[in-house]
């Protein structure tokens, strides 16, 4: 890196101060983060996803996700002319190492990243017998892993298959929308790692959030709308064959 010593003397302390403020405290303690000012969601743009699997790998690194289980994963759909309502779907190891090369340029293929939808009317928090999973005041569905019994009722209740029981901790686990990052002003690990901008964090309470703006000016869909879960993972360009 070609920085002069002079630049270094100025830049390093500035960067250090910036970094410290990033690392600062919990949502209640941090003066910069107020839960009531946020209502988090996600935008996933199917037209931009290239199935590289960066998001799946980044999530695993950021959150210590055990092998064989997925807080996020990518599916590849192949909709053939003969059977447009029954697609062929694959997700090799959740798409973690990408996908095999697909043949047939005239065929209809696309990638669909999946994750916890952080539902506003979530069926999973409804069924927890003790109150170990809940939606935070800022719209993130979380699991209190020191309170969870590991009964797996929430896993059964999720229509999207985004929950699992952690094999070592024996409690429910799932995407936390990188709560430890978004409360510090960072974006989620999957959004940070996505090279094409197919995944973008959205703050539905922030009128100036460009993603919020996108949601208002484009046709977006949610998965399984008939379940009326109040899903906050919005998809752009979602095909009707997606399950």
């Amino acid at each position: 890196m070609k920085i002069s010593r002079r630049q270094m003397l100025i830049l390093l302390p500035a960067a250090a101060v910036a970094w410290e403020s990033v690392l600062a405290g919990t949502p209640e303690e941090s003066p910069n983060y107020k839960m009531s000012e946020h209502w988090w969601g996600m935008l996933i743009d199917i037209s931009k996803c290239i199935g590289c699997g960066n998001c799946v790998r980044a999530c695993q690194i950021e959150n210590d996700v055990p092998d064989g289980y997925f807080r996020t994963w990518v599916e590849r759909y192949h909709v053939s002319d003969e059977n447009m309502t029954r697609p062929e779907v694959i997700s090799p190891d959740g798409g973690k190492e990408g996908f095999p090369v697909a043949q047939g340029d005239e065929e209809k293929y696309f990638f669909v990243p999946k994750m916890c939808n952080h539902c506003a009317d979530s069926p999973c928090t409804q069924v927890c017998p003790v109150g170990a999973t809940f939606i935070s005041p800022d719209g993130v569905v979380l699991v209190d892993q020191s309170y969870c019994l590991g009964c797996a009722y929430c896993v059964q209740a999720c229509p999207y298959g985004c929950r699992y029981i952690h094999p070592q901790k024996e409690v429910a686990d799932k995407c936390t929308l990188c709560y430890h990052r978004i409360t510090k002003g960072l974006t989620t690990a999957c959004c940070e790692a996505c090279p094409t901008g197919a995944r973008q964090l959205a703050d539905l309470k922030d009128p100036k959030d460009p993603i919020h703006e996108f949601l208002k000016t484009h046709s977006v869909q949610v998965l399984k709308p008939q379940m009326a879960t109040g899903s906050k993972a919005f998809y752009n360009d979602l095909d009707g064959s997606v399950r």
Partner: protein
Amino acid sequence: MSTFKDAGHLFRFAGLFVLAFLVFLVVRHFVVPKSFGQYGHYRGASMGEIAARPVQFAGHEACEACHTDVVEKKKNGKHAQVNCEACHGALAKHADDPSTVKPTLPDTAVLCARCHTASAAKPKGFPQVVPAEHSNGLPCESCHQPHSPGMDAPKADAGGTK
């Protein structure tokens, strides 16, 4: 009164219930975590615990604070929107202590191929090639500079500390 005498055993049974209930109330007072119910039917303190997890990815703004020359090279190129750690991996530890924690350079043969290997499944407008046919075995960086990979960009070194 004789009814009560003859029903004495029932009062004892009920008494057991009342006693058990009182014990339960006392135990409950001590056992239920203090922050439970603060925001809803859950332990309010758990949100702070979840948020206190250390980060692994620094986020591109942390990188850009120091590596301004790379920012310059990237900003008009095709990878302008590709974040640093999308290729360089999780580097919060490096941002925390730049001099002692050194990131390793990614292997372009694997890295570039992940996104740019041609597949019918990828969006049509996305730049993709068949790696074996494209470069005759030459490494990607022979012709493309990763921070500004367009062929018209100068093939100076990519920048960053080696």
